């Protein structure tokens, strides 16, 4: 069963023009896709639909086998907790330490504090921030913030991981490190979608692409051979 299915999805913000037109695709469990396209094509908008940050204006979005139009507001948070998101602007809580930022999804889920202490510590060490756990985000470099944001997205072991331009403002080495981290998670079974305009990264990691142009999808990944 597909993890995600979009059928003729359209999106418009309030009374503005339609941003996405008739977008249809499916994501199989365990797949890894790049979402590419020129600036303004609607990549971030598509990801918002994917992580339930926005409702489509028309069409059907099916996630984990459920039609999202039929899910009540009460049940949405539990679904969102199965989706990890690395936002383009990180969206870290500036008054919380790196540790507390990463712990947030677990605290929201009501995880036991002892488990939180152990898992968050391990993950931060794994992404190379073992010595910066108690630093505030503002005191961290862009690449370090990126890793905190990524750690927060994956700490809850999501079924679907979404990253919006995760290599946007960081150097090549850090970008490749982050991509390897996402690859590693993908190998453990997480379905991954990464929006990027970085051709070199797409070339290097060779995952199938969803290409958006002017709000329309150019290649359907369900027709593309699955990598990984």
């Amino acid at each position, binding site marked *: 069963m597909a993890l995600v299915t979009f059928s003729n999805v359209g999106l418009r913000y309030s009374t503005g023009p339609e941003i996405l037109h008739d977008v249809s695709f499916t994501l199989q469990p365990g797949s890894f896709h790049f979402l590419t396209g020129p600036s303004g094509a609607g990549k971030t908008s598509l990801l918002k639909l994917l992580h*339930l940050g926005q409702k489509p204006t028309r069409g059907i979005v099916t996630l984990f086998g459920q039609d999202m139009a039929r899910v009540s507001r009460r049940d949405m948070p539990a679904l969102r907790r199965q989706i990890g998101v690395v936002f383009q602007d990180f*969206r870290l809580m500036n*008054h919380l330490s790196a540790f507390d930022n990463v712990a947030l999804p677990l605290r929201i889920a009501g995880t036991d504090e002892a488990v939180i202490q152990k898992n968050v510590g391990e993950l931060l060490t794994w992404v190379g921030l073992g010595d910066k756990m108690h630093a505030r985000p503002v005191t961290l470099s862009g690449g370090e913030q990126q890793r905190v944001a990524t750690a927060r997205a994956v700490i809850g072991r999501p079924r679907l991981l979404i990253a919006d331009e995760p290599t946007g403002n960081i150097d090549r080495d850090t970008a490749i490190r982050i991509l390897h981290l996402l690859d590693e998670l993908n190998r453990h079974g997480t379905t991954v979608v990464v929006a990027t305009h970085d051709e070199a990264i797409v070339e290097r990691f060779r995952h199938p692409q969803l290409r958006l142009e002017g709000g329309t999808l150019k290649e359907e990944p369900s027709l593309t051979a699955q990598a990984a």
Partner: protein
Amino acid sequence: MTKKKRLFSAYKYDIAFSEGVSPHLVTWVSGLMVFFIALALAVSFALTSVTKNWTQSLTGSLTVELAPGAPAVAEKISALEGQHPDVSSARVLAATEVQGLLAPWLGDAAVGGFSLPVLVDVQLIDGASVARVKRDIAAIAPMAVIDDHAEALSSVTTVAQVVRGFVSTLSGAVLLLAIVSIAGIVRAKFAIHRQEVETLHLIGASDEYIARQFRHHTLRGVLLGAVLGVAAMAGVFIAAGMVTHTLNSTIWPQIQMLPLQWIVLLVSPLAAGCFIAHVTAQRAVTRELESLA
């Protein structure tokens, strides 16, 4: 959430409440509200105690007025003492006493020239039937004017009711204003911290999880305000007591608050504060949260 157990000072919010709208604003608003309402409550209790004293001294007595020169009838009425089960004492006032009562209205000189009415002061036992006594006196002296002080009593009661009505209207207005202000402050906080709230929402926090943070934060401010407000009120009340005591006022000794009234005075603002913080924050936040997808 395990944090729930860490009450107050150790509580760590996911939202940076210490930034933006001053956390003291809610404390000020609720402190002033509690101060005024507790003061109004205290005034109302004191008023009740004063009117109760007045009422007690006026009820349980009748004044019978007889036309001049009817000593025999006056004697019969004073004989009710010991005969009538509801009468504890009945005493014919001496002429000088009656003169004393009338002098302020008629002047000393004029009083001398009148033939004075005869007044009988009738004291009733507790729980006496005023109507029955009046009927029995009327049977002895059909022409007598019997005054049961109902008019004086009703005017005292009316004044007390008007004052109490005024005080509770004012308290209601203060309460309403405080609720509206607190709701406004919570909304402003929501707007300022919208980005953080959105992030929490997107990473899977339920509306209840987010609302709880606002409720808890508001409750903290309101409780602090309520404690300070009650303390200020108690200070004013004690100071007023000391002032009137040194003035040797005749009213102050009559004001006695029951322990229950003190408890109501101290506890109800706190309870009301908690309730208002909870409901107001919850409503304001729920309304705002609905604007998120």
